[in-house]
């Protein structure tokens, strides 16, 4: 950066400052666009993590056949025992799912009910507040994912009610799987027998951990085969496949949103390029004077690129920083049918924001810079 500016840094900065209204508007525009870009990027990262996660590939979810919303899948609890008897099964955990909203929503609240001890073993959860023992002993106790806690301002001791559901927060947890942090865990019984609930002897889904060396897909096939004769037919898939298919509408939408991300980049590019072209055209004569003084055309080129890069980088970094801060503090998530995608800030996203701001700034400056460095000196001087 310093090499590019060199001794002419004050000139570049002062030139930008001279038209500060224009410069600040451009910086603002670049910031807004990069903000949106980072947001879209974080949603996509969240989706990718959800499906590419190792745990998501290894864990199987047994769900009632042809059902999608968790309220409509009802598996008899004795399936737990029947699956456990199959070779290659390490553990089976029944999970009761309750959500306030089965459709795609930005303010989804998902309760998962599971036997507390089993939950503690099966999931990689770290309590950052509260304690396990209260969760394990108290019937209406719940541990709350960090994201939900942030969004709903929950701390241990809070009472959290939504619809018919009311729980006492026993702890707040973080997880290596960001989507987990959008979930509220209660005991299985609580969700089965709670007020207005009628799920006695029933679970929404069963989570199956295969033993080492067992092919999960093959095991899934065997589970469905074994339960075919039961009262309820099942569909068993890897957790990743289950989540992707549950979120399929959202996945399409998110895939589409990445075009929105690219559109934002195009927007920054054209905005910064336009401003730089204007600034260059204002100064055709000034550049001719500088060349007369002995600045090489290549240096004029670099000065213009530096100008464009500075504007774009400042705007882009501001946008990126604000987006990451908002993602970090907001604890936002999008979800449908009991599966959520977490929006989390990440190092990659921060890095991507910086690199892209810089890159777009350079690209945006190239055309005006060529224009500025190619204009014949005498022609430009005569324009005054």
């Amino acid at each position: 950066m310093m090499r590019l500016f060199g001794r002419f840094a004050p000139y570049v900065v002062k030139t930008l400052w001279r038209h500060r209204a224009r410069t600040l508007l451009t910086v603002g525009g670049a910031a807004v666009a990069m903000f949106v870009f980072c947001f879209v990027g974080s949603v996509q990262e969240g989706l990718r993590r959800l499906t590419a996660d190792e745990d998501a590939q290894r864990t199987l979810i047994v769900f009632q056949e042809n059902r999608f919303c968790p309220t409509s899948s009802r598996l008899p609890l004795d399936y737990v025992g029947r699956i456990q008897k199959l070779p290659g099964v390490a553990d089976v955990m029944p999970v009761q799912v309750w959500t306030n909203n089965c459709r795609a929503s930005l303010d989804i609240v998902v309760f998962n009910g599971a036997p507390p001890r089993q939950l503690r073993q099966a999931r990689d959860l770290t309590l950052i507040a509260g304690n396990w023992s209260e969760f394990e002993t108290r019937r209406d106790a719940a541990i709350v994912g960090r994201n939900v806690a942030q969004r709903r301002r929950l701390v241990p001791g809070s009472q959290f009610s939504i619809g018919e559901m009311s729980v006492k927060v026993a702890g707040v947890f973080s997880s290596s799987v960001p989507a987990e942090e959008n979930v509220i865990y209660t005991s299985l019984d609580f969700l089965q027998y709670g007020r207005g609930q009628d799920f006695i002897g029933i679970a929404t889904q069963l989570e199956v951990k295969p033993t080492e060396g067992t092919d999960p897909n093959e095991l899934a096939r065997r589970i469905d085969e074994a339960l075919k004769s039961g009262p309820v037919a099942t569909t068993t898939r890897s957790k990743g496949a289950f989540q992707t298919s549950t979120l399929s509408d959202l996945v399409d939408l998110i895939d589409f949103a990445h075009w929105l991300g690219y559109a934002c980049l195009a927007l920054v590019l054209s905005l910064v390029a336009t401003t730089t072209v204007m600034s260059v055209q204002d100064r055709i004569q000034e550049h001719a004077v500088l060349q007369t003084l002995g600045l090489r055309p290549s240096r004029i080129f670099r000065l213009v690129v530096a100008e464009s890069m500075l504007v774009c980088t400042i705007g882009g970094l501001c946008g990126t920083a604000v987006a990451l801060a908002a993602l970090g503090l907001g604890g936002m998530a999008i979800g449908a049918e009991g599966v959520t995608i977490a929006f989390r800030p990440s190092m990659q996203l921060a890095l991507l924001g910086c690199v892209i701001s810089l890159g777009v700034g350079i690209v945006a400056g190239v055309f005006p810079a060529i224009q500025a460095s190619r204009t014949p000196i005498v022609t430009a001087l005569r324009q005054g």
Partner: protein
Amino acid sequence: MALVEIRNLTKSFRKGDEVITPLEGVDLDVESGDFISMMGPSGTGKSTLLNMVSGIDRPDSGAITVDGVEITKLSRGKLADWRAANLGYIFQTHNLVPVLTAYENVELPSLLLPISAAERCKRVELALEAVGLSDRADHYPRQLSGGQEQRVGIARAIVAHPTVVVADEPTGSLDAATSVQIQVLLKRLNRELGITMLMVTHDPNVAAIATRRLYLDRGQIVETRSDELVGQV
């Protein structure tokens, strides 16, 4: 060998179907320390000649050699380097960078030279002192009068200790009194610092301060005596 040698210089412009040839086979020698003024009717190619000596325009044919370097053969980049080291250019108007102070404007050409920061600072201060504007160093162009702006332009033209300084109507947009100040200044720079100068002007009084007076007409240079010239205009 003369400091500046112009040999058989020809330049023409095309305007639609019409071809104008303001300079045709021009020859001129400028010795070190010369102060040359050039007059002539409007549109005869005075500025064009000056621009080619300055290395900001190229002739169709012919050669210009300055201090042994044939500048007409240099590439664009090399020519820029040559200008930085050897040329001072005094414009008629609008020549300062508006966002920079007088000091920074004068400093600009010296930023391109391989000299230390201390040396640069010294040269800028000396140049500002030479034009009598040391007390205006921190002023921006918009805070200066036309005459002061022109003096800053002159300081900028001499700060790099150029081989030759050219000036295209340096007093063209100044009132009579300010014009006289500039004349005195240019004359002093030539006499006291031995700066070689090539100046175009329409004002016979300005032309009179030069040591050699040239007249350009129909593509050719005629050397005149000052009394003849004053009579003609």
